[in-house]
């Protein structure tokens, strides 16, 4: 860990003034030094600093900024929460359980109880991938501005099975899988004001920029997250499979949001986590369910379609079967 300056930002505006880079920028510009970056609970950031992956000059704490830890729900506007809302807060919220079951499942199955109590949702969406090459001081990989992706020929058992050509890191947030399924939006605040965009547009593929998993700008922070009101009859579920049942990262996770009319599925949103560099919509599977009565057979067929076109790597063929199963089971659990 390097020596750095620590400042508590009094307001969003001040924080934006003080910061000069995102963590991804600080990593690729390491040789220039002078990075001023923001911190929430520090769960991910301190890990990166300790491993020597990022060495900021200044760390700006957002935690004490008033108003960023509010959560609201009403039937007119849906769910909205600030970036400092913790995972535990979401996991324990009754309205979330009632209305956004998949989000409840995703938050309740993320990390450990201790981490859920600290970790914030802003930080969760901005955390960096768990790829062991990216996390290792000894591997200067594409994501860190190097010119090799070690996972291509290396130990890729936990990597992606879609969009693997450039950098097959999977997005580390398993909660994002559920958020994308609910069409969540993020509000970003920067020097020029605020912008709102779908989480699915906020996340970006390596093709766009391999060093970064989203399009947050150097002086932008997440200031709000919203989930729309759901149509009546909407049902959802989420399943995550880790190597362990006790706290673990996702080998594969699936969120399913179904708008039902009686026994019929009107529309479906199915999202795969830890399958691709970003949470991935399984559009063919979604299309299959549209207008049909959900049966076990149909759910299994959706599972098949969800992995169509996958390009598994040397050590992760098992993920195909895993996602087939998780898609099927989540659909059946949702209805």
């Amino acid at each position, binding site marked *: 860990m390097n020596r750095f300056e620590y400042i508590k930002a009094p307001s969003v505006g001040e924080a934006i003034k003080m910061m000069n880079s995102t963590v991804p920028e600080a990593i690729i510009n390491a040789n220039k030094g002078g990075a001023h970056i923001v911190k929430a609970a520090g769960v991910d950031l301190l890990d990166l600093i300790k491993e020597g992956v990022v060495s900021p000059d200044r760390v700006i704490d957002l935690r004490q900024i008033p108003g960023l830890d509010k959560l609201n729900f009403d039937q007119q506007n849906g769910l909205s929460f600030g970036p400092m809302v913790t995972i535990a807060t979401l996991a324990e919220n009754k309205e979330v359980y009632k209305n956004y079951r998949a989000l409840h499942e995703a938050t309740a199955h993320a990390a450990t109880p201790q981490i859920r109590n600290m970790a914030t949702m802003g930080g969760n969406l901005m955390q960096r991938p*768990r790829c*062991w090459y990216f996390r290792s001081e000894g591997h200067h990989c594409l994501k860190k501005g190097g010119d090799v992706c070690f996972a291509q020929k290396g130990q890729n058992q936990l990597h992606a099975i879609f969009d693997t050509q450039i950098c097959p890191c999977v997005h580390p947030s398993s909660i994002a899988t559920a958020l994308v399924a609910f069409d969540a939006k993020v509000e970003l605040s920067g020097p020029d004001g605020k912008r709102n965009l779908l989480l699915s547009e906020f996340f970006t593929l390596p093709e766009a920029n391999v060093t970064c998993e989203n399009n947050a700008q150097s002086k932008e922070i997440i200031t709000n997250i919203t989930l729309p009101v759901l149509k009546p009859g909407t049902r959802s579920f989420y399943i995550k499979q880790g190597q*362990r049942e006790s*706290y673990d990262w996702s080998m594969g996770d699936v969120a399913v949001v179904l708008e039902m009319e009686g026994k019929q599925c009107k529309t479906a949103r199915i999202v795969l986590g830890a399958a691709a560099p970003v949470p991935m919509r399984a559009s063919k599977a979604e299309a299959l369910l549209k207008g049909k009565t959900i049966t076990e057979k149909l759910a299994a067929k959706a599972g098949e379609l969800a992995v169509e076109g996958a390009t598994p790597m040397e050590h992760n063929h098992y993920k195909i079967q895993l996602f087939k199963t998780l898609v099927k089971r989540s659909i059946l659990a949702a209805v």
Partner: protein
Amino acid sequence: MADINKKKIVLPLAPNEEFGSVKHLNTKKIKLPHGIPGHNLTEIEREVSADEPPALAVNDQLSVVGKRTKRIDAIYKVTGAAKYTSDIQLPGMLYGKFLRSPHPHAKIKSIDVSAAERHRGVHAVHILSVEPGGAVQRDNGHDAPAETYHVDKLPVLRYVGQPIAGVAAISDKVAREAVQLIKVEYETLPFVVDLDEAMKKGAPLVFEEKVEQQQTGGDVGGEAGAGQQGNLRGPSIGSFYGGPRGDVDQGFNESDIVVEGEFRTQVQTHCALETHGIVADWQTNMLTIYASTQSTKSVRNDLAELFDLPLSKVRVITEYMGGGFGAKFGAGHFGVMAVVLSKKSGHPVKLMLDRKEEQTTAGNRPNSQQMLKIGVKKDGTLQAIDLTSYGTAGIGLGAGVGRVAQDMYTCSNFRMAQYDVFTHAGPGAAFRAPGNVQGCFALEQLIDEIAEKLNLDPLAYRDKIDQSEIRKVERKKGAEKFGWKRKQPGSDSGVVKKGIGVAQGHWPRIIHVDSSATVRINKGGSVEIMSGVQDIGTGTKTILAQVVAEELGLKAEDITVKIGDTTYPDGPGSGGSVTAGSITPAARNAAYQAKMQLLGQVAGGWQVEIADLDMEKGEIFAKSDTSKRMSFVDATKKMRTNQIMATASRPDDYGGFEVGNAIGYDRLGSVQFAEVSVDTETGVIKVDRVVAAHSCGRPLNPLQIESQINGGVIMGVGYALYEDRIMDKETGYMVNANLDQYKLPYSKEIPHIENIIIEQYGAHSSTDASGIGEPANVATAAAIANAVYNAIGVRIYELPMTPDKVLAALQVI
């Protein structure tokens, strides 16, 4: 026993060149309990030295020994009063930190430590030329181990993480900064980290010349003078149980059924709660060491030899210890470095490894590839066993797969060839039942396959081929508790299939005769026991208190236990499951001798014979005249000296040893039953339940034994399903060197565990106790593997049994 192979077989944990069995001036004959209560308990007569205490009755006739007894130091541990090595703070203490190799194989062209030396707060910098702990090349001028700390040679780097240089500074942070200031120019060389690749012709060589290694553990492999070709060293064709037997080819010819299989096990890294570490305080009159070690005397002996000090000038202290599973013997590279830095700086130096260093440099269970072939007659009689194994302990030796195939079942034709394969990876070390855990995974699956071919239940078949009375009882009691009722393999309906399996474990009964203790009775009635033996978390302190209390008619909490300090008489190392069996007889004998001195004084006062006196419930009384009675405390007040004291060492086993001065008759048997659920759509295995039946001679403290069994089973679950050192072949790094990505079993992975402790008397010593730590871990993975087979009807031949392997076996992928 058949002809032992020609070369010398090194006994584990025992000095090689010592006198054989001991003769006694006077002997007596005593009758001791022998066998298993409720099964075959009898008495046996042994001729023992005249100063041995009388035979100890079976447990239910005793008041302290054999009773569930709370740890006497539990209160200090839970309140934080217990100080572990990592808690030690000394005035002026500095913090040590290593510069470690970023390359799997390299030469150092140049190294410049001047900036580190100039860095503010740095007191000393030192370059380590040869790392203790790994194999050492003999004929390039490094005559191990005495030269290991010389400054003038630059080390050849053979794995990522190998120590290069150390820094001592006023804080951990400053030390880390200084390490980064050391400039090194490397010449990188080709490397190999994979077992199969390393065996190929033309693979990069780890050692150019022949190597040897000092042994610390109970592993097979690594014998002195073995052959070496390329990265392959061996074979080992024997163990302390002897060499090849009979004619194996003939045996196969005469077999009706032959089964064979190739089994693979992974590298498991040590993950003790407390990492390796030392605080070294070099003073002109004494070198004082605080160490997280399994053997205080091994640290003292290493350092005395390396730094040319008499044994009397090195003191090693391990008051509390945060766990060790075989890798914490000797000074270690960090210990040598801490001492050099302390000597150079004139300050105490603390050097604790961090988790990454722990997992990459501080020892691991080597992996294995085992080709096992067994031939049997139609009636199931074992005709021939043939074992070939390869395994890598990285730059170290001792990757054998133990002695289970050789010794668990009777088979007159046996042959094995166990090879070490060098790779550019951190050195292996002993690890909870080294070798036998790997070997058991193969043997016990193949025995199940034979049973199936013979159409026999796995337990019924073992009843037939297993000579061990202990395991016979364990199978019976275990099957009852478990509710052993097996479906046809793969016949469970549904997606999540349940299955049950059983496997047996085997571990030698090893004794360390260099185990001594002093018992001291003070005026006023306080009693102390003192020994260099350490309590590594197993509860050694508590069993010592129990044994002394039993002898003196007191309570365990009346005894003050002072151990873990080489100032006291040497104790055994805590490895090989030797501790309880080695130190408790010494403790009881010392207590008995001190008691005789006290009773001698009382007898003089009361004008009775010593033999007429005894101690019970805090009192001394005459058996012939019960009105003659005095409390123990009052009696001590009348002692002629302020203290009475006696020291005793572990005598030979009553009835002698099976091999050398260390290997006893009897084995430590175990039988474990597992129930699993296998999700056939995801490949995920869950262990639901384990019943573990174990023997450890006379059980001294069932509460602590249960803890050991629980721990062994949990570790076995981790080994079976989760843990794996993942090496990147392209860069030579361990990519999961942290406790996030290296998967240990946590709360939800732990099955429901039930224990059965068999009380078994072998009449081997004055306490007749044996160890339990290692046996607890031997059979678990094999039992789980057999249960998985029973659930899904296909066998998994490789550990850990992760979803990808299960799905592949089911041919889903």
